[in-house]
C-alpha cells in the first residue's frame, strides 16, 4: 500500500515537472532574448506559419497546439508569454534532452513565421483577436 502511494506521488511529481518544464529558458542569452519578430502580427506571415506548423509541428503538438500525449501544449502561459527571441532560440537549438529537435534547417524567416503563428493562437481559453484559421486550411 505504502509502495503504491509512493509511486503515485512520484508519477504526480514527474508529470508536474514535465508540464512546467521551462529549463530551455535558462540557456537563452540576453542577445537572443532581445530579438524581435520581423513578421509579428502580419497576416501573410501568420498564414505561412500556419502551413509550416501543419507540416512540421502539428503531429507532436496537436493541430490545435494543445499538446499530444507527453508533447507539451504551445498555448500555455509559459510559451505565450515567452519573448519572440526566446522562442526563436528554442526553435534554433531545440531542447534535445527533452525530445524537442533543433529546427535550424528551417530558414530563419520560416522560423519567425512559425513564431508569429504560435503567438497568434493565444493562451488556451482566451479568445485571440487575430483568430487564425485552423492549421493546414489556408
Amino acid at each position, binding site marked *: 500500500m505504502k509502495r503504491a502511494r509512493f509511486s503515485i506521488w512520484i508519477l504526480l511529481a514527474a508529470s508536474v515537472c514535465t508540464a512546467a518544464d521551462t529549463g530551455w529558458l535558462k540557456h537563452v542569452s540576453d542577445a537572443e532574448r532581445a530579438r524581435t519578430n520581423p513578421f509579428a502580427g502580419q497576416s501573410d506571415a501568420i498564414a505561412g506559419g500556419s502551413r509550416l506548423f501543419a*507540416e512540421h509541428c502539428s*503531429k*507532436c503538438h496537436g493541430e490545435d497546439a494543445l499538446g499530444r*500525449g507527453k508533447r507539451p501544449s504551445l498555448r500555455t502561459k509559459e510559451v505565450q508569454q515567452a519573448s519572440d527571441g526566446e522562442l526563436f532560440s528554442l526553435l534554433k537549438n531545440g531542447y*534535445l534532452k527533452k525530445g524537442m*529537435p533543433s529546427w535550424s*534547417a528551417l530558414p530563419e524567416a520560416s522560423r519567425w513565421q512559425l513564431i508569429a503563428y504560435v503567438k497568434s493562437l493565444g493562451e488556451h481559453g482566451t479568445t485571440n483577436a487575430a483568430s487564425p484559421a485552423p492549421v493546414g486550411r489556408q
Partner: protein
Amino acid sequence: MQQIVCSNIDGRSGRKLDLKCIPPSCNWFANIQSKEIVKLISALCLLALAILATPAAAQEWPYFVTYSHALEEPGNLEVEFKGVQATPKFGNAFSSGTIEFEYGATAWWTTEVYLSGQHTSNDSTVFNGYRWENRFRPLLREHFINPVLYVEYENLNAADRSLLEIVGHDSISDLRIPNAAARSVTERELELKLILSSNVRGWNISENFISEKNLTEPEPWEFGYAFGVSRPLALKAGSKDCFFCRENLSAGAEIYGGLGDMDSFGLKETSHYAGPTVAFDIPHGPTIGFSPSFGLNANSVGAIFRFKVSYEFQQIFSHFHRGAR
C-alpha cells in the same frame, strides 16, 4: 556446387585477387530466394506504414553522399529509396537500389538500416547486403559548426554499387568485376564519420571526414571525404498552398572522393566526383531528388546519375500511445 577461379585486380589496393566464383546458372535459386524475401519484407513494411502513419515532408538537405547535422525528428520514420545508374568505361552499365529506414530514436540519436541490391547489364541482379548506421549529436545546442558522430556496421558483398561513399582506393576497376565473382566476397566493415555542418543565412555547408576498416581482412584503415553546400530556393513560406513553387525546391552541389589508406594517404589512385543536386518537396507527399555526379579523374566513372524518393512518417508509434488522437 561447381566453383571456378576468377582473377581480377582489386581497385582499392591494386593487388591481384583470386575470387572463387559461383556460376550464375548454378546460383539461380539462391538469387531468386533472396530477391523474393527482400520484396516481401519491403511490401509488408510499406503496407504497415501506409496504414499506421501520416506522411510529411522531411527537414533535410538535397544531398546524396554528404551528411548534415540534421537528424530525424524523434518518433519519425523516414523511408527512402536511393537509386544509382552509371556506365563505367569498358564495363557493363549498372543500376543500384538502396532502401533506407531512418528512425529518430531521440532528438540527438538517429538510427538507420539500409538494404542494397544492384542489376548489371549482360550480367545478373544481386542482393548486396545491409548496413546499420547510427548518428549522434554530442553537443545539445546549435553552434556555428555542429559536429555529429557517425558509426556504421556494413555487411555487404563486393558487388555493392550503391556508392554511398568513396573511400580508400575505390576506383572504376571495382565496377568491372563480374557479379558472380564479386558477390562471393563478403566485407564486414566499420565506418566512422565526423560530420561537421553549419546553417548560415539559409545556406547549409557540410563537411564529412570518413574512415573505414575491414573487420574480416587485415587491411589498413581507409579514408574519404564529402563536402556539400545547399540552400532552399525560397526562405519564407507563402501564405497559400502551392505545388511547383520555389519554397518546395532546394539546390546545391556536392564533391566527394577517396583519400587513400593508412599506407598511402592522398588524393591519388582513387576516384573523385562532383555535381549539382536538387530536391523537390511535394506538398503533403514525398521528397524527390536528382543529382548527376561527374568523375574528376581517370579512376572515376564519367557520370553517375543519382535519384531518390523519401517519405517521412511522423510519430510512427503514436497510434499505440494512450491518449493519442
